């Protein structure tokens, strides 16, 4: 159960791989993982950069609560949430969530829950820099479960 906020570029696969080394080998059978990456387009416009604002203290607390919730709902052995904050370039990872379990169904479901809950509850806000020099705050997806929205 780990939460990390990164102001430097995030290496999601190294982060997960390193975290996994801390788990007892042979004790888990499944790891489901999601990485959200900044795209260079959104709503028909070219996006040249992004700034992620957060609420220091509350963000970490809320992400840890989300991990607690996942743990009460699925038999997961461990989980990890990593999120970028600050200035982000297109192509850079924004978020990584991972769940480890004995069986794959719990890992998949817990991983998806972590992402949905993060997008609904974690105090993080994206502001995009546009090609013409303008900036715009990203609007939340009207329907998170169908709309996607990472990279927005």
């Amino acid at each position, binding site marked *: 159960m780990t939460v990390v906020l990164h102001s430097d570029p995030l290496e999601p696969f190294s982060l997960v791989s390193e975290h996994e080394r801390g788990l007892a080998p042979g004790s888990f059978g499944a790891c489901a993982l999601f990485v959200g990456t900044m795209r260079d387009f959104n709503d028909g416009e070219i996006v040249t950069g992004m700034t992620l604002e957060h*609420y220091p203290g*509350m963000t970490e607390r809320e992400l840890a609560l989300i991990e607690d919730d996942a743990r009460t709902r699925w038999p997961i052995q461990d989980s990890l949430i990593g999120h970028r904050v600050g200035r982000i370039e297109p192509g850079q990872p924004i978020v990584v969530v991972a769940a480890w379990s004995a069986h794959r169904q719990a890992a998949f479901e817990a991983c998806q829950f972590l992402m949905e809950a993060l997008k609904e509850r974690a105090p993080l806000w994206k502001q995009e820099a546009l090609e013409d020099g303008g900036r715009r705050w990203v609007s939340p997806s009207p329907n998170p479960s169908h709309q996607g929205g990472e990279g927005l």
Partner: protein
Amino acid sequence: MSITVRYFASLREQLGISEASVPADGIHCVADVWQRAQPDRDLPPRVLAALNHAHASLEDPVRDGDEVAFFPPVTGG
């Protein structure tokens, strides 16, 4: 004898302020904090609130020394 008020993201930009301190006397709930801190503005309809780093409703009771935050819907992930 005061309450810390914080604003984030587009709300912070609109208000032109990120943090303030308001006297605690006469304040009972989160909604009172907004009214004390922003007497000339109604709370915008979609704004969310937090109390001491936890999501809160406008009716949640506030005490001296608490930290209350207001912010727009979140867009992380």
